[in-house]
């Protein structure tokens, strides 16, 4: 009985402790997420945003039992409060002046600062991955996108042209405009694959984090390999689009573009990732066998 009342008591204390924070978070971020879900996240290129948010919340929930011991110290508390205030400034400026990266990153900073203030630095160590992972849901500023997109578009067009040329197709390229037969294709921004790269990289990191492979080599190698993989997947998509337009005409090509191209992209990326993962595992095995052999 005494145990029961003390549990009720601690539950009450928990509610009392977390209610103000929850309320504050709702005041700040309900409007933000409402805007996101009805605006940016409803667009095709930012569709991964809500997925990343959901996965992060799941990760935080999964890791929560690991931080329930409270160990705050002075340094963590000072750091926490300073981050908290800076995050609020980011929020105020970001939201009132509609600078999305400010507004959304303040969400991550606020979470981090509350962890620091309430639980100390060890909590931040436990939670670093979900907090880092949430960075991927912040849309890059338009200027950054443009400056990264252009060289990527050029590279995709260049590689596509050369592969098709080797395969003896009548192909020519002018900047990012591909000419095949009588058709002219402008390699669009979406084909640069910056968004694809970020989505794949984030999902890849998530996968690696959840699977928790013991081999550091495999984790790091795979995380790095996702970059060329997403590039290759994009080239495959553009080549398919070009060939479909060449053989079946413009209308079929455009139909493919809007319906099927995305699936091809992610399928080819998935196959490439799995292939490279198996290759890495094979290398690790070979290496292990060798060390065993030399140890004898």
């Amino acid at each position, binding site marked *: 009985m005494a145990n029961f009342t003390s549990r009720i008591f601690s539950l009450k*204390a928990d509610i*009392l*402790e*977390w*209610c*103000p*924070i*929850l*309320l*504050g*978070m709702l*005041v*700040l971020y309900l409007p933000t997420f409402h805007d996101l879900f009805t605006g940016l996240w409803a667009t095709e290129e930012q569709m991964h945003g809500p997925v990343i948010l959901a996965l992060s919340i799941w990760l935080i929930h999964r890791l929560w039992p690991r931080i329930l011991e409270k160990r705050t110290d002075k340094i963590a508390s000072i750091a926490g409060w300073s981050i*908290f*205030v800076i995050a*609020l400034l980011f*929020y*105020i400026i970001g*939201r*009132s*002046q*509609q*600078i999305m990266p400010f507004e959304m990153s303040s969400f991550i900073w*606020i979470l981090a600062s*509350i962890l620091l*203030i*309430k639980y100390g630095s060890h909590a931040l160590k436990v939670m670093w991955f979900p907090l880092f992972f949430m960075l991927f849901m912040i849309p890059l500023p*338009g*200027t950054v996108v*443009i400056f990264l*997109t*252009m060289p990527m*578009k050029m590279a995709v067009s260049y590689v596509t042209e050369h592969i098709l040329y080797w395969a003896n197709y009548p192909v020519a390229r*002018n*900047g*990012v*405009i591909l000419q095949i037969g009588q058709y002219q294709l*402008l*390699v669009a*921004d979406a084909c640069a694959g910056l968004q694809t790269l970020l989505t794949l990289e984030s999902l890849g990191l998530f996968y690696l984090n959840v699977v928790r492979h013991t081999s550091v080599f495999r984790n790091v190698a795979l995380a790095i390999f996702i970059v060329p993989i997403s590039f290759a997947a994009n080239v495959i998509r553009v080549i398919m689009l070009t060939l479909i337009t060449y053989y079946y005409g413009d209308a079929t090509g455009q139909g493919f573009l809007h319906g099927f191209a995305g699936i091809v992209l992610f399928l080819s990326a998935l196959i490439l990732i799995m292939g490279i993962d198996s290759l890495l595992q094979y290398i690790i095995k070979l290496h292990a066998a060798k060390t065993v052999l030399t140890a004898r």
Partner: protein
Amino acid sequence: MNTMKKPVIVSLILGVLMTLSGVLTRIMTHTNQIDIRQDTLSLEKIVPLEFDIWKIDSSTAALMINPDDKGLLNRIYNQTLSRIYINNEGERVMLSIAYGRDQSSDLHVHRPEICYATSGFEISSMSKSFVDTSIGKIPVMHLVAKLGNRNEPITYWIRVGDSLTRGWFEQKLTAIGYGLTGKVPDGLLFRISSISNNEQESYRIQQTFLTNLLQAVRSEDRHWLVGQLPP
């Protein structure tokens, strides 16, 4: 008891600070739009078809780059104007003006270095500069867009409210400056370009064009194009 209360007090402070920030943000966000310009604009009317040594060139149907693709175009801009002018020596200048009423949000005027880049052009030698005209010094951005053998030196500025800006930083900073005073600035992209391999010569022709044009625009209409120039 004391040790139990402390976390609750900390939470309360956190909650109150967050709520206050939320309220402050709400106050600072301009929900009621205050335009700084009351009269209405007609680009077709204020930019003359013929002035000084320049007249509309109807002989060429040169390919002009739209500030953006059509869908975006209608969403961002309330008015656009594009014309090709030719002078008595046969030199051509392409003029493109795009006007957007609300510069506070994502709907701000897009910079040429971006719309050219998305159309496949390679952007080079971008530099801030000033052009001397009879009505004053005008801050402009020079850049060269290249696609295949089409080389296009460009001069542009973006008016945000009453100031002229060049590049992302100036544009955003000016818009934020207005935002903090609760005003919603309008914006206008003014861009002229020529197709030529001789960039210095092109900029010289564009300067002449600018001077002549601004002289020809009625002084009460000039603010639409150049805002309030410092004396």
